[in-house]
Structures are given as C-alpha cells and as structure tokens.
C-alpha cells in the first residue's frame, strides 16, 4: 500500500516545479553517493561470499519559499559485505513534503527525529552502518516567535530495510520551554530549559514471533509500550548542567542466566543522564554520568534480528569514539540491559608565547571513562567486576609553521563478559602523528602506531604515509601488522580527488574483521581484500 502512495508523492514533488514560472522555479539541491568494492580472493583472511558489493544513494530536495519536498533513493544490487542483508534491492527510502513558516512546520512523509538525547526516540541515517530508520508519517512543530516554547507532535512507521514496516508504528509529542524568554527575560545571561516527551509504540507481531513467544516466553508481548522523559538544563556563562530521566512501560526483556541460559519476561526500563560542562578562557571540561536499565527499544520486539538498524532509540557507548586505527581495534559496545558509568574530557590550549605553548601554541586533551554493568543484568549476580575503562591523552604541538606533531596515548581495559568475570583485555596504544608542509599546497602526513597487549591478538604495529597536493589530490599508503599473533599484514593504498563538492577516492588493500562503529553504534565487518571506489557529489 505504501508504494502507490510513495509514487503519488514523488510525482507531486517532481511535477510542482514544472508548473512554476521559469523566473520563479525554486531551488533544487541534492547529492549522489556510490560506494563499490570488488573483492579479491585471499586465502589468509578469507573472501566474502559475493565477489562484489555496491551501495548507492541519490537524494534530492526542492525548496520554493515556505514549501519544500524531497526524496532519497537507494540501490544495492548487492550490499557491501557486512551490511544488513535486508538492504538488497532498490527502494525509495525517503519522500517528504513540508511547509515551514517562522512559527509552524508541517511535514508529511519521511523524517528523522530525536527527542532529548535520543534515549527515548531517535531515528537517523548512518551509511557507515547501513542504518536508516526514518519515520514515515507526519510531524507538526510549533514555535513561539522568541522560541521560548516549542511543541511537537508526530506519528509514523519506522523504516526497516528499504521500506517502512507496517508492523510497528509510533506516536509521540515533545514540549520544550525556554523559561526566561517565555517570561519576557530574553536578555538574561542565565538559561533554564525544561522539556518533556511522550512516545507510544504499537507493534504487531509476525506469526513466527507469536509462535516463538508462546512456546518459549509463555506470555504475550504487549502490543503497546509507552515511554516518557523529562529534561532540565541550566546554563550561565561557561557553565551548564543538564539532566534527563527516561521511563519505559513493561516491555520484552531477556534475562541472562548462568551457563548461557535465558529467560524471557516483561520488565520496565529506565535511564538517567547528567552532563556538566564548564569553559573559561582556553580551558574547558565536560563530565557525563549515564545509567541504563532495559533500554533496548527495537522496531521488532523479539531479540531475533541482530541488525543494527533494528532500533528506535540511541544508546551509544559512553566512552570516546577512537579515530586511530589501532586504538579502535577492540571497541566497547553498550550493555543496554543494565550499565552505569562516567565519562569526562578536559581540553586546554597553552597559548602562543607562554612557557609551554612556545611560539605556536600547544593543545592538550585528557579524557577517560569508567563503565560497570548493573549486577541484576548479569548472568551471575555474585560476580561483578569492571566492564570497561579507558584513559586517552592527546598532546598537539606546532613546532614551526611547517611542522606539527600529535602524540596520542590510549590505555583501555575491556571485559569480554561486561564484568561478569575477572578477565579483562587490556591494550595500550601509542601514536605519533606528524605533518610537514613542504610548501603552501604540498604536505606529508605520517602516523606511527603501536599497540601493546598480552591478551586477544597481542601486539600490533601500524604506519601511514599520506602525501597531499591541495586543493585536489592526495595519495596514501598504510599497513597494520599483527606481529604478536597472526602475523597478518592489513595493507592499504589509496588516492583521492576533490573538486568543489565532488570527491572521488580509490582504495586497494585488506580490511580486518571486527566491529565497525559510527557514533557509538556498531556492526560486524568481515575481513576482505578488495578494490573500492567511492564517489560523493553534492549539488
């Protein structure tokens, strides 16, 4: 039923500009992205089942005054290895029309939405993960002129794979009150924002799920699950503090027992989040506390679909997302059944002309996190150790206008059982990242990395060389070598070209199997050797 509606909306969106006069035909923008990999046989690391994969995206947006409309089409003749299998084929994954005035926005069709920090609801797109759970339905947003009050109601069906699912639907609302402007004190240096949200999820089970649940769970999964949240934020000058509480009505929950046994039950969920920020001069710091209890919220209620796209809220890892190759080898994945933890960062710039800053300044970052699982969520409640902790230090210094270095150290300890055993996998990563500019447009960047570990795959080393010719070309070569265990090289060669809003990159080499994480959400990536071509163009 959705496809005829989609075609009708598409025809309307495309026909509209044609009826407008040539002098006032509005504005069309868009983007095209294509990622393709040809996989080569590799006896050492393995070869994906299909010899090639290709993910392709086209997005168009039309704007004319207060009216806008747009669409997104995706085409996966064969999804890239590691991407969710439900993506195979072609689909119109986004289609909308919207009226947007200063006070009111009315939108019909597909849309992305995040309420609060996303603990209660988040729909978003992440092409690294193959995730797009946009809602198809409608949303009305109202603002007062001074933005002191924002109210929103929404409803729709989440997208799963290439089309919206008709088995799950959401309805919700959100109210945000910026209290001082609301009471006429718009010039105050203080800010107090009070917000709240409600989300109601309606889910219809498949015949298979009904049979599975009747046979193993012994109860009926609720057809409707209500969630609610309250948020309060205060800021003054460089200081801000934000708190959020989320509650969820009884929902499907998998209780883990000893010896890998599982029991299904109905259980409510809740989450608490507190964030504190402070900044003064060239110093800033942030501290976050988060606690989760049965906060998994899936499009499909059962635990049968492992796809990262089967989600309706955002539960990212609390720790920092690593960007250097070796530092991201063994990432922590959120334990949404029950965990609590802290994460903090400090930034300081030693300014030019100071004793430590020297002639060109020096930047320091120190960050860390500490996460533990909640005992009731673990199979053995009497055994409770650390789930994850890390400390990360970056020191960035310019030695001259031509030469800059970054020294990075990351010390990580990750429990494979979320703390339900004494064993942790520790790894210490050291990186030296150096940039030398030969001229105003030609530069060379190198990375030297070493990972020291006595667990998992033991020691690794890695290096990268990248030569850039601004503003168009760069070429690079890199290698990750697991000299502590498998003795396998993961080499890669690449070239990239940019011209205005066009970017083309060609890469060849090996990719290690492991978790690919983006924004703290992860998917499994199999190992492969191949040649990849990526094109991005926005217009």
């Amino acid at each position: 039923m959705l496809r005829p509606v989609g075609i009708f909306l598409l025809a309307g969106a495309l026909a509209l500009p044609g009826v407008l006069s040539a002098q006032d035909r509005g504005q069309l923008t868009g983007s095209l992205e294509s990622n393709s990999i040809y996989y080569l046989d590799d006896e050492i690391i393995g070869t994906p089942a299909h010899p090639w994969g290709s993910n392709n995206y086209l997005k168009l947006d039309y704007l004319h005054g207060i009216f806008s409309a747009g669409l997104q089409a995706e085409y996966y003749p064969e999804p890239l290895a590691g991407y969710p299998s439900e993506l195979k084929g072609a689909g119109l994954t986004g289609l909308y029309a919207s009226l947007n005035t200063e006070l009111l926005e009315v939108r019909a069709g597909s849309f992305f939405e995040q309420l609060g920090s996303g603990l209660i609801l988040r729909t978003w797109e992440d092409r690294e993960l193959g995730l797009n759970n946009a809602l198809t339905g409608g949303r009305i947003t109202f603002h007062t002129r001074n933005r002191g009050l924002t109210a929103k109601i929404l409803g729709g069906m989440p997208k799963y794979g290439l089309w919206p699912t008709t088995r799950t639907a959401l309805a919700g609302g959100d109210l945000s009150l910026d209290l001082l402007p609301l009471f006429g004190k718009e010039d105050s240096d203080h800010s107090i924002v009070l917000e709240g949200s409600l989300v109601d999820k309606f889910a219809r089970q498949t015949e298979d799920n009904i049979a599975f649940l009747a046979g193993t769970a012994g109860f009926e999964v609720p057809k409707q699950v209500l969630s609610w949240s309250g948020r309060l934020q205060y800021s003054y000058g460089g200081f801000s503090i934000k708190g959020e509480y989320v509650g969820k009505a009884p929902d499907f929950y998998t209780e883990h027992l000893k010896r890998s046994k599982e029991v299904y039950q109905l259980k409510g969920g809740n989450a608490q989040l507190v964030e504190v920020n402070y900044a003064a001069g060239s110093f800033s710091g942030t501290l976050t506390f988060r606690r989760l209890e049965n906060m998994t919220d899936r499009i499909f209620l059962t635990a049968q679909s492992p796809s990262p796209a089967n989600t309706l809220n955002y539960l990212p890892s609390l720790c920092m997302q690593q960007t250097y190759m070796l530092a991201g080898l063994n990432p922590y994945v959120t334990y949404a059944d029950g965990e609590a933890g802290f994460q903090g960062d400090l930034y300081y710039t030693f300014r030019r002309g100071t004793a430590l800053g020297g002639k060109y300044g020096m930047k320091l970052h120190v960050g860390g996190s500490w996460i533990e699982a909640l005992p009731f969520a673990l199979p053995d409640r009497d055994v409770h150790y650390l789930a994850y902790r890390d400390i990360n230090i970056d020191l960035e210094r310019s030695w001259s206008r031509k030469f800059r270095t970054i020294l990075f150290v990351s010390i990580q300890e990750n429990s494979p059982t979320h703390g339900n055993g004494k064993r942790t996998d520790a790894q210490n990563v050291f990186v030296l990242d150096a940039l030398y500019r030969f001229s105003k447009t030609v530069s060379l960047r190198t990375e030297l990395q070493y990972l020291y570990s006595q667990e998992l795959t033991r020691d690794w080393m890695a290096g990268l060389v990248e030569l850039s010719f601004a503003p168009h070309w760069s070429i690079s070569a890199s290698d990750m070598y697991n000299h502590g265990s498998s003795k396998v090289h993961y080499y890669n060669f690449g070239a990239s070209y940019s011209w205005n809003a066009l970017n083309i990159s060609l890469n060849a080499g090996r990719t290690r199997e492991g978790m690919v994480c983006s924004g703290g959400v992860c998917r499994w990536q199999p190992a492969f050797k191949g040649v990849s071509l990526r094109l991005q163009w926005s217009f």
Partner: protein
Amino acid sequence: MKKLVVILLLFATVFVASGQQIPAVQLQDASGKAVTTSSLVDHKTPFVVSIWMTTCKPCLKELDTLAEELPDWDASFPLRIYAVSMDDSRSQKRAVAMAQGRDWDGITALFDVNADLRRALNVSSVPQVFVYDKEGNLFYTHIGYRPGDEQELLKQVKKCFAR
C-alpha cells in the same frame, strides 16, 4: 530503478543552475540557545560555514589552521566563520568543550544536534566548507581538507567580497 535515477539526474541538472540560498534550519549555540541559519545572513558581509565533527581529524586541522590565519587576515574583509558541529548527542558535549578548549578565536561554534543542516546541505562527508555571499547565496563549497586548502578558501572569500 535505473530509469528513475536517470530521470532524476536530468531533472537535477535543469535546476542546479539556480542559486542556492542557505537553508533555514535551527541550530544551537554553546549554551543550548536556538540560532536560525537565516540569522547568519546580515546583508553586509559574506560568511563561511565549516561543517565538522569531533572524530574528524581533517576538520580539526582545518579549523585550527583558519584560527591561526585569522590574526594575519586583511581587516578590510571582515570575515565571519561559523564552525557547525554535526556531532550527535553522544559527542555534542565534547564538541562544545572542544570548540572552547581549542581556542578558536574568531570562529563561532554552532551545533546541528538533529543533523538538520547536514541533510539540508546534503553533506555526506566532513569536513565540507561553504562560502555564502552577503545575501546568503552559495558562492563556493569544497569537500575534504588537505593542508593548503585554506589558501583556496580564503581566495574564494576575497572573490566573494568583490562580487
């Protein structure tokens, strides 16, 4: 599907020539207050929008370099640079802290928490910079950052002033 793509691309080429106005989207400043992109248009001077993320090292290099260039910038071309973070709720607090702790004097940090500007500008990878003229029409854009790209960017800004 292939026919649809071809039709859409032909359709796109007809309209690409149209001037692109900065889309009207709501962002946040460091204190969480709402800032609309239309308020960046002052009808007097061009401005630069740099889209960045805390996990994007080229983004940080580009903004660091622009901050270093600003003290030597010709004051007769008053330059406004807005660094718009695409970080989501996981790392937005880190983006706020980083924007202040990295000492980007002369650069205004804004935050695109729901990725509305990212989608409206069709940004598929970062960094991407946009130069808008004094009326908010797109003058120049560039994907990615290589050391030295700032020279081309600043050259385009001066051209935009002369427009």
